């Protein structure tokens, strides 16, 4: 039920209705001619409607949410509370620097913390999502080569295990994508990498640990191959949670990195944003950072502009990124401290390996049992599908009935019928054991009563959604009954 369907003409809350006349002085040509199509409802109807909707949420605040590659960890309430302090909220983005020194100090400190934890020489907080961070990163690689007149480099190498955003980013920046395969251990195929690398190579985009949930052990050899060919190394920070404070991408030889603050630094996400995709760079890419960057001079904070960084790739948003999200990430980082960041990586990895070991013990097929998991791992439901016809998607839907958000399904595509499971560091052993039990129960159901699993979910507000129809005939526009003429 939509709020529009609760609408009755003339119903309103007098206490909240505007009680002054419409603004005057707007030219007649600019005034709208029709009333906007807004629902009309009483205050109590609105409160009940949205409260009910919120109760239907299946979220990290209500359920275990092991969505692989998404790092759905608990978002501490303190981050929210402090980022919502009235002086942060009330500050205008165009307010003079002198009157916003507190905010600028937070951003500066966050830049410094991120530099330190990733081993990079400089950080810009401006990208407003992970994908925009990727775009900024590759745009800087391009700007670097262009500034040197090294314009014959037309290719970006991307392993086949990469997130789909990697090749998309390379194409958006005008590059051709060269895909290289993964070997049987889940590592980059070095021979294929050597064969793909040459004077045409602008760079390599690598996620480490990879989306297969394993740490790329050959990273030193990889960085040498790319750097010897004159290319640069891009670190996709999707899986930074696994190594936070333990291994620095800068030490691995990466030239540029994007960090999903909405994953690793625990800002809320899952509903399509807002995100924050801060970028970090090595020394040679400093001149190209997206603006503004906060700097400190003589105990006061300022924005660097085009005057300071004339080779910058420019601005990525009208103001200063998703600043509310950046503040939450800052508070989170400060609450953790350096020791806390080590514990994030340790417990994220411990939880993933515990869960992987328990599922392996329970007879599930782990994709890389010989490898230690990073912060996530893959289980294949192919044996179950071959035996019962129940697919990974069926299992995922049934998990909802058992009170668990499903893991990522069918990604990465390299493993058939896969589930990519990332428990994160914030879950207890009891929750992990409960998840293992739920998967065991579903496996039993798949053998005994497969129709029960095929018809899942059964306890959610909606049953199995028609994702084919949704993809083919996407229609998100509400039309009032009167505006749709009868056929």
């Amino acid at each position, binding site marked *: 039920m939509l709020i529009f369907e609760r609408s009755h003409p003339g119903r309103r809350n007098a206490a909240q209705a505007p009680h002054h006349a419409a603004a005057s002085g707007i030219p007649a040509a600019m005034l709208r001619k029709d009333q906007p199509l807004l629902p009309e409802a009483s205050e109590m109807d609105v409160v009940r409607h949205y409260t009910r909707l919120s109760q239907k949420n299946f979220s990290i605040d209500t359920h275990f949410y092991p969505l692989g590659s998404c790092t759905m960890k608990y978002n501490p309430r303190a981050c929210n509370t402090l980022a919502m302090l009235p002086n942060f909220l009330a500050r205008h983005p165009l307010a003079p620097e002198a009157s916003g020194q507190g905010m600028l100090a937070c951003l500066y400190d966050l830049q410094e913390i991120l530099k330190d934890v990733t081993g990079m020489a400089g950080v810009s907080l401006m990208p407003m999502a992970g994908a925009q961070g990727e775009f900024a990163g590759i745009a800087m690689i391009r700007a670097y080569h262009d500034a040197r007149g090294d314009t014959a480099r037309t290719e970006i190498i991307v392993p086949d295990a990469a997130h789909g955003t990697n090749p998309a980013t390379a194409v958006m920046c005008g590059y051709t994508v060269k895909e290289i395969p993964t070997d049987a251990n889940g590592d980059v195929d070095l021979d294929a990498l050597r064969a793909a690398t040459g004077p045409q190579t602008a760079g390599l985009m690598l996620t480490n640990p990879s989306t297969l949930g394993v740490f790329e052990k050959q990273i030193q050899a990889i960085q040498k191959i790319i750097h010897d060919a004159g290319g640069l190394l891009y670190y996709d920070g999707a899986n930074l949670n696994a190594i936070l404070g333990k291994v620095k991408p800068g030490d691995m030889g990466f030239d540029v990195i994007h960090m999903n603050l909405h994953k690793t630094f625990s800002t809320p996400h899952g509903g399509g944003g807002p995100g924050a995709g801060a970028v970090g760079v090595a020394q040679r890419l400093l001149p190209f950072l997206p603006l503004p960057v906060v700097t400190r001079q003589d105990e006061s904070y300022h924005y660097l502009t085009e005057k300071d960084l004339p080779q910058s790739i420019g601005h990525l948003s009208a103001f200063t990124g998703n600043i509310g999200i950046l503040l939450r990430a800052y508070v989170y980082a400060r609450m953790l401290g350096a020791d806390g960041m080590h514990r994030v990586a340790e417990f994220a990895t411990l939880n993933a390996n515990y869960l992987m070991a328990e599922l392996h013990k329970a007879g599930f097929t782990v994709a890389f049992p010989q490898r230690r998991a990073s912060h996530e791992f893959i289980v294949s439901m192919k044996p179950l599908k071959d035996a019962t016809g129940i697919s990974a998607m069926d299992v995922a839907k049934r998990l909802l009935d058992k009170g668990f958000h499903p893991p990522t399904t069918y*990604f990465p595509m390299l493993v058939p019928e896969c589930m990519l499971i990332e428990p994160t560091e914030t879950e207890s052993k009891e929750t992990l054991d409960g998840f293992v039990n739920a998967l065991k129960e579903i496996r039993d159901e798949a053998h005994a009563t497969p129709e029960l699993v095929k018809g899942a979910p059964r306890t959610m507000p909606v049953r199995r959604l028609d994702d084919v129809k949704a993809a083919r005939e996407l229609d998100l526009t509400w039309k009032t009954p009167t505006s749709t003429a009868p056929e």
Partner: protein
Amino acid sequence: MSNPANFKYTASHEWVRSEADGTISIGITQHAQELLGDMVFVENPAVGRKLKAKEECAVVESVKAAADVYAPVSGEVVAVNSELDSAPEAINVDPYAAWMFRMRPDNSADVAALMDAAAYQAVVDSEAH
């Protein structure tokens, strides 16, 4: 559904059918459509485009993933199956009838050198975990 014995195949899961006029039709295999699941979108190359063997030239998108389709041999695109624009599910129904595009190969020996059904089946079996 078995792979037609009179077709040729690639390791990247395209099938190739030789037509009487010397052109070849290209589609994706039963194995590929099964892995991808319900198709929602097909993007074909432009007619007249010159392709090199193994070049990315088309995209099939399902509810699970988008996958590139590669030119099996070098040649020129001479036709595309525009019926798939509005009915991509035809690939799921019968992948060996739902051709995507036709090419005129630069060299017909390239087509003859592609895998036969038995060799392709061995590739599929080796991929099964």
